[in-house]
């Protein structure tokens, strides 16, 4: 239900609720019938839940209107994209295609992504790319590194994907939605309630929905900002990132991620698409702080070990053109100006591959 309809129907619902409450107080109180009290309570609760549900859903529909999994109005939805980006926070803040008129691109990068989540996004949405389209995988030392699928972060996907990977006892992976449908078929009516509770997700996931709103609001604000970080904040943020990197460094080149990257590469090739790995720039302050960690070399080794050819890698890690602190909102996320500048260069480089 669209937001407009929800707002439009609000008055009626308020009137309905008011009438119920009045009846509740004036008439049924005198009868002192506990069952009627309970009945009214359930009705009121259901009505409130319904309003809250519809309100959240309409808001969420608006937030994710562009995602292909959410398309109901296929008529207006674009196909045959040239480029799709997958990756984590750095990827999200690395590119801005709004002013690139000669390419159609879609940025699917999301905060807190693992490589497995990237692959999942790709599996679900790659069909909107044209043949020979390019998949840009933004590989970052600060993300993509957790080998496990971050289920607790998956509330993002429940909104528009609703079919995240589901592992069962025999270690076979199923897609959640299909697992759900299969179970519904097997158990018939029993699971319809479960199916409904998933469909009406906000009741089931109130906390995750609130978290999602806060996260997206903050993200959208960050994406809009053209501000530059001040030195003090940059220093604090750099320390934080270095610490973060040191913590995850040990798990960086683990076998599982390597295999995952190899699988991704094969998946993309089999579908007549091209994988390009992009290592986005980070601020000069952070570059200097990470000087002794051999980060760049470790990234190269990891990519190479997954069998990715060097000419499919665009490495901007130490690119002087984009390391200027004035292009960043913190130590590793580009601001609006930085993103535009970087995107223009990135598209040029992609064409030269």
């Amino acid at each position, binding site marked *: 239900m669209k937001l407009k309809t929800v707002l439009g129907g609000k008055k009626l619902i308020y009137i309905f609720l008011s009438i119920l409450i009045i009846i509740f107080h004036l008439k049924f109180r005198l009868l002192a019938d506990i069952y009627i009290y309970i009945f009214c309570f359930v009705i009121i609760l259901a009505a409130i839940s319904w309003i809250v549900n519809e309100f959240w859903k309409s808001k969420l529909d608006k937030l994710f209107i562009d995602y292909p999994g959410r398309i109901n109005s296929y008529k207006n939805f674009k*196909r045959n994209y040239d480029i799709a980006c997958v990756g984590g926070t750095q990827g999200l803040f690395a590119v801005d295609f709004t002013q690139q008129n000669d390419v159609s691109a879609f940025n699917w990068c999301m905060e807190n992504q693992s490589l497995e989540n990237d692959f999942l996004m790709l*599996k679900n*949405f790659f*069909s909107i790319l044209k*043949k020979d389209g390019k998949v840009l995988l933004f590989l970052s030392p600060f993300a993509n590194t957790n080998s496990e699928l971050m289920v607790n972060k998956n509330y993002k996907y429940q909104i528009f994907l609703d079919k995240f990977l589901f592992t069962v006892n025999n270690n076979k992976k199923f897609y959640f939605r*299909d697992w759900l*449908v*299969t179970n519904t*078929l097997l158990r018939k009516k029993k699971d319809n309630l479960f199916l409904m509770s998933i469909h009406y997700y906000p009741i089931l996931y109130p906390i995750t929905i609130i978290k999602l709103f806060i996260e997206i609001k903050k993200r959208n604000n960050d994406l809009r900002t053209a501000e530059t970080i001040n030195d003090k904040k940059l220093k604090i943020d750099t320390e934080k990132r270095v610490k973060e990197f040191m913590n995850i460094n040990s798990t960086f080149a683990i076998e599982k991620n390597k295999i995952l990257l190899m699988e991704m590469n094969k*998946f993309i090739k089999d579908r007549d698409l091209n994988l390009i790995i992009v290592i986005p720039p980070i601020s000069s302050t952070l570059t200097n702080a990470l000087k002794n960690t051999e980060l760049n070399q470790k990234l190269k080794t990891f990519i190479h070990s997954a069998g990715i050819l060097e000419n499919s890698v665009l490495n901007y890690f130490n690119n002087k053109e984009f390391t200027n602190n004035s292009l960043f909102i913190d130590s590793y996320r580009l601001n609006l100006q930085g993103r535009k500048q970087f995107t223009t260069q990135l598209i040029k480089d992609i064409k030269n591959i």
Partner: protein
Amino acid sequence: MENNYILNNGVKMPSIIMGTTSFTSFRQMNEAICSAIDAGCRAFDTSRFYRTGGEETEKCLGIIIKNYLKSNSYLTREDFFITTKLAIPQLIRGSIEKDVIESINKLDTEYIDSLLIHWPFPDYFVPAYQKMEELYKKGLVKTLGMSNCQIRHFEQLFDAGLEINPQVHQLELHPLNTASETVEYCKKKNINIQAYSPLGKMLDPIKNNETLKEIANKHEKSLAQILLRWHYQLGFAPIFRSKSVDRIKNNLELFDFRLSEDEIELISNLNQNYKICTESSRCPGY
């Protein structure tokens, strides 16, 4: 209306098929199907997961055809060609025979004319097809097929060593998406094409296309008739859908005129590789 394609196992498949999704009530479906049969349509496409006003569409279709046969003795079950499909959850579950028998019971028939795999769900579609072969041998299914496949899916299937080659492939085909590579491959393998969304949902680039309008005016036919005829002349069996009795009749009147080679080419040139159905969001990992 006597226009059939002969499939690679000798079974006859009508050259135009009616889809059974999107009916909102049994009454509406009954009226539409009966008028289609009256107008000469003999092929119907359904699936276990289609619903008609809360009822299973397979069941509704079974009742409608059975009732029609009761009141029209000039037709028999053998005159009809019914296609149904196995959906992803059925492939995962793996009890193909049980599911097909259930479909047969719901359709109130003794066999299914064409059984397709709805989506080539990774890791599951090949074993499912092998189980379908057993049903074919038992005579429960007259033809086997795939749906929404790319060449790589067929190659996977053939590499697994098939006993019975698919006879039918159902895919999205219309002037905005001519899928020429897949079509060529199917031709080479002697697999007949069923085309869903044959009118491209009458999206603006089709509805407002001047070339199509000119061709339609020249032949004094509707745009839908021109597009369905284009499918027919290219050897495809279009699966049209409509709730309107008049439109159904109109769609089936496509055998009294012929498009020239140039006109066929002009229509084919509208291709933009525009798929209405984005496969990977329907079948993750597609």
